[in-house]
């Protein structure tokens, strides 16, 4: 929950900065509601997968999870690059500049906050 809040906050701030920098409005395709939904979904899924992997693989679970989370985040770069926007949206060339950094926000938020919630050591 904390990670999704941090992701939403970062994404909202970045959207405003991007809007002022490029004067392009992508709120039709990436509005606040979608950002909140995307953040919640991603972070909840992350918690579930992280919990499952630690239960299953014990200490190695955290290491493998972190590796997978980074790889999947990087692979998700292709989503905003390949997505087709509605024709009413102007300057689709600038959309990856907004959305590509955002795919890393859940991972950044997770890695930032995760050490604040230490678990019992499992062997």
């Amino acid at each position, binding site marked *: 929950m904390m990670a999704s809040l941090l992701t939403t906050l970062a994404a909202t701030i970045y959207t405003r900065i991007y809007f002022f920098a490029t004067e392009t409005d992508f709120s039709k395709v990436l509005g606040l509601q979608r950002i909140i939904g995307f953040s919640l979904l991603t972070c909840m899924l992350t918690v579930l997968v992280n919990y499952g992997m630690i239960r299953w693989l014990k200490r190695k679970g955290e290491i493998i999870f972190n590796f997978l989370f980074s790889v999947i985040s990087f692979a998700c770069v292709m989503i905003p*690059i*390949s*997505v*087709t*926007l*509605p*024709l009413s*949206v*102007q*300057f*689709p*060339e*600038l*959309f*990856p500049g907004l959305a590509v950094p955002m795919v890393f926000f859940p991972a950044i938020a997770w890695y930032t906050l995760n050490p604040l919630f230490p678990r019992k050591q499992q062997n």
Partner: protein
Amino acid sequence: MKKLIYPFIAMVLIIGSAFTIFKAQDWKIADTSYVKFDGGDPSGQFGGMKGTISFDPNDLTNSKFDATIDVTTINTGNGMKNTHAKSEKWFDADKYPSIEFASSAITKTADGYEAKGILSMHGIQKEVVIPFTFQDNTFKGSLTVNRLDYNINTEEPNHGASSFKVDISVPVTK
């Protein structure tokens, strides 16, 4: 002398009328005009239509379309595809920056009208017939265009669609 002035004016008007050029109503193309193309993948639209439209439903002989669209306004909804579409391999926007249509004849049909003319694209000129309607100050027409007829990326005929349904909407004002 006064008796002669009126017949003289009448004569001037009659002779002058022989040289009068009948011109159909001129229309200004609105900024909201578009040309949509649908080939499945890719699909999109062009904007930025410019040109002159002279059209009078009661005087089709003197009606004429002369329209140009800017190739760089292409929007497929995807930035990467837009860049590819404008590249040398496809529309080659640097060399052929516009797509033009100039009508040679407009005729009435059962459903509306037909504009016969020359479509110039990618350096190739072909005669096409565009069926269209004119309602609420908006011209709407459609036609099918095959990119291979205009030498657009003939090296890859199966790369994406080759035949496109083109829908044209041109709102106009007097």
